[in-house]
């Protein structure tokens, strides 16, 4: 069975062909290679899925022994179970769609082939990440997607700001990766293995002390925070919007940033044995969900609104993992991929129509000019806000219910999640109203060129919008299941791998219906508030209280960037400039380098004196040498 290895190998082939030869190939060939190979990987994933469904046994495949020293052995092995299947389908499916969309979006860009090569490289590493059977394999993918993300954020490298954004993403991710690595060391130290299944089994059966479990859980969370843009390592995500919009949709919304949630779900057995770490995970997720949502409220950059929204939604997923509802987290990951990709690509279509304009203050009234784009954007927005029957409603409801009712959950977590949902509805409809309603504030010189996207883009938008509507129907909550007499195939599918959350004693199932109604009302309230504030044609400049200190605090991203700049970046700069350069490097080079070199030069001059240039002195040397050789011969 070699088809598992083929799934990541196909995008890698696309990367190699387009990366090495792409510049000499016509654009049509480049696009064909770049889109056909991920599509083939998607079909292979479907094949693996049918095998998995038929047998019920996870597929595993060992490629080769990567390292073996004593008791330490790492196999380069792939593993395909239900969780992997969900991730793989999202990555290859949404990935293929975004590749197709990119054909239209990147049309005419001088780096066309390079773009598709990077995109295929990203898919390769992402598939290694989700297919890896053990932590080191996952780590390769983990680092690889970081690299691809860096390359694609700084894709337009002529702009120093964009290169800097790529660097920032890379450096901030290093902090998270350190946590990941330390967690791996600890896991190895205690469990003696890095294989996911063995690790889960070991820590589930014989957990070491609570302190150790908490340390491992929190270190893994640090890794997840870096990749999934959770507080306090979220600062790179808004800047990452410097990349092309399809990249934001694929990497910074649908797939890569959800890797942290995947990591937490993959090691669910470990987390269930670490209740304190679970609490930390839940609260980090909840705080990120709320804080991310508030930051979305003050943004005027359309893509950054979506970036903060992504951060907030992943916060919800992390919170779900933290309360033990790994199934709900994976479900939201899956529905979120559809509607957030659709939102980003819809925003891309708006940017495409407006010649790259990202500021919502220079949009407005586009609903009439771009009716199709408006339609799909609205559908995805409704899904994100969590209104029934759109996809986001079911997954968000599952998370909020678990946050309230699970043994690890609490009403406080539910309240924070619901507040985040309210803000989500508010800022998303604020964005819709500012972009598509009211009077046009588009600059006159681009107003004439506004056009709907080409077929390759609109077809993808339509498919994703369809997903945003129907994707949630395979995971209905229990009350609706009973009402309609249907099952929830998604949760049944994941059940063999991810245990369902335990409910607290005394929580009635009937409460779920009530909470659902509350969630819908809250979302509607957010929409109505956005309408009152932005929907009636008031100009955004007049309505924004830019001078209010609270507004200032939020729009500056709670000064996270300023804090890091002052206390980390500048401290490191000071440390290297004053202490390391002047205090360490100069004396060190004076003693270790310059003095050694001088001693060598002196020794050389001593020996050089032997070379007199007089023939007869050399004859004497030869005589001495001869005498020594003969003498040695005589002695021995």
């Amino acid at each position, binding site marked *: 069975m070699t088809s598992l290895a083929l799934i990541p190998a196909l995008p890698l082939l696309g990367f190699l062909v387009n990366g090495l030869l792409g510049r000499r190939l016509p654009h049509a060939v480049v696009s064909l290679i770049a889109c056909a190979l991920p599509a083939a990987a998607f079909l292979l994933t479907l094949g693996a899925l049918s095998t998995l469904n038929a047998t019920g046994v996870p597929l595993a495949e060992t490629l080769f022994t990567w390292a073996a020293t004593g008791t330490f052995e790492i196999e380069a092995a792939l593993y395909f179970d239900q969780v992997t299947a969900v991730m793989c389908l999202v990555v290859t499916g949404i990935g293929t769609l975004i590749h197709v969309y990119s054909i239209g979006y990147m049309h005419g860009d001088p780096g066309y082939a390079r773009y598709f090569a990077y995109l295929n490289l990203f898919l390769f590493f992402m598939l290694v990440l989700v297919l890896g059977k053990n932590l080191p394999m996952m780590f390769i993918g983990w680092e690889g997607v970081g690299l691809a993300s860096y390359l694609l954020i700084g894709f337009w490298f002529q702009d120093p700001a964009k290169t800097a954004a790529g660097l920032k993403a890379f450096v901030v991710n290093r902090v998270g990766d350190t946590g990941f690595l330390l967690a791996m060391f600890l896991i190895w130290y205690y469990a003696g293995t890095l294989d996911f299944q063995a690790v889960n089994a070991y820590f589930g059966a014989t957990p070491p002390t609570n302190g150790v479990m908490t340390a491992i859980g929190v270190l893994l969370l640090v890794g997840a925070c870096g990749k999934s843009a959770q507080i306090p390592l979220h600062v790179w995500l808004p800047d990452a919007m410097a990349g092309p919009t399809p990249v934001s949709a694929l990497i910074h919304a649908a797939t890569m940033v959800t890797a942290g949630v995947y990591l937490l779900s993959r090691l669910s057995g470990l987390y269930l044995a670490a209740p304190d770490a679970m609490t930390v995970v839940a609260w980090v997720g909840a705080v990120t969900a709320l804080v991310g949502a508030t930051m979305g409220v003050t943004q005027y950059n359309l893509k950054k609104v979506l970036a903060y929204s992504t951060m907030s939604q992943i916060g919800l997923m992390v919170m779900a993992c933290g309360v033990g509802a790994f199934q709900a987290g994976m479900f939201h990951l899956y529905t979120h991929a559809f509607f957030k990709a659709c939102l980003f690509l819809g925003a891309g279509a708006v940017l495409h129509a407006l010649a790259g304009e990202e500021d919502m203050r220079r949009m407005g009234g586009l609903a009439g000019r771009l009716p199709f784009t408006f339609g799909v954007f609205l559908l995805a927005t409704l899904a994100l806000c969590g209104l029934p029957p759109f996809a986001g409603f079911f997954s968000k409801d599952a998370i909020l219910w678990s946050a309230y009712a699970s043994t690890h959950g609490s009403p406080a977590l539910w309240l924070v999640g619901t507040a985040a949902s309210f803000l989500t509805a508010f800022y998303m409809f604020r964005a819709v109203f500012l972009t598509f309603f009211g009077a046009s504030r588009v600059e006159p010189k681009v107003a004439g060129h506004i056009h709907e996207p080409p077929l390759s883009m609109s077809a993808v938008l339509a498919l994703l919008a369809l997903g945003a509507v129907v994707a949630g129907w395979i995971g209905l909550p229990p009350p609706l299941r009973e009402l309609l007499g249907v099952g929830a195939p998604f949760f049944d599918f994941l059940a063999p791998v991810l245990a369902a959350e335990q409910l607290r004693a005394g929580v009635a199932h009937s409460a779920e219906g009530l909470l659902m109604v509350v969630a819908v009302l809250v979302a509607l309230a957010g929409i109505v508030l956005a309408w009152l504030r932005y929907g009636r044609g008031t100009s955004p400049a007049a309505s924004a209280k830019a001078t209010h200190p609270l507004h200032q605090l939020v729009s500056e991203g709670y000064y996270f960037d300023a804090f890091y700049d002052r206390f980390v970046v500048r401290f490191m700069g000071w440390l290297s400039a004053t202490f390391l350069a002047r205090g360490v490097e100069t004396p060190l080079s004076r003693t270790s380098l310059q003095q050694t070199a001088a001693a060598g030069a002196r020794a050389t001059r001593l020996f*050089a004196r*032997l070379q007199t*240039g007089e*023939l*007869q002195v050399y004859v004497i040397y030869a005589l001495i040498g001869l005498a020594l050789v003969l003498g040695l011969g005589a002695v021995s």
Partner: protein
Amino acid sequence: MIDRYELLLALAVALFAMGLLGVMVRRNLLVVIMSLELMLNAVVLSFVAAAAHTQTLHGVAMTFFIYVAATCEIALAMALLVLLVRRRGTLDLAAGQELRG
């Protein structure tokens, strides 16, 4: 009575030593080359003495090889010497120390 063979060997050693001394201390290039030849001949003498002593022809054969090599050597040496003298205008060895370190 001193053995004739030993006497010849002692003579060869004396000749070799004189030659070596000449190479080491004389300044005139021509004399240095003559001293070199003297060392060569001392070696040849030891070969011949050994051949006579052991009643074999190996040492005698060696003599011929050495003379062929010595002839070639002196022909080259003289050519080099002429060029050197033209370049420096003197036969004095101490005049040039271009290889001084």
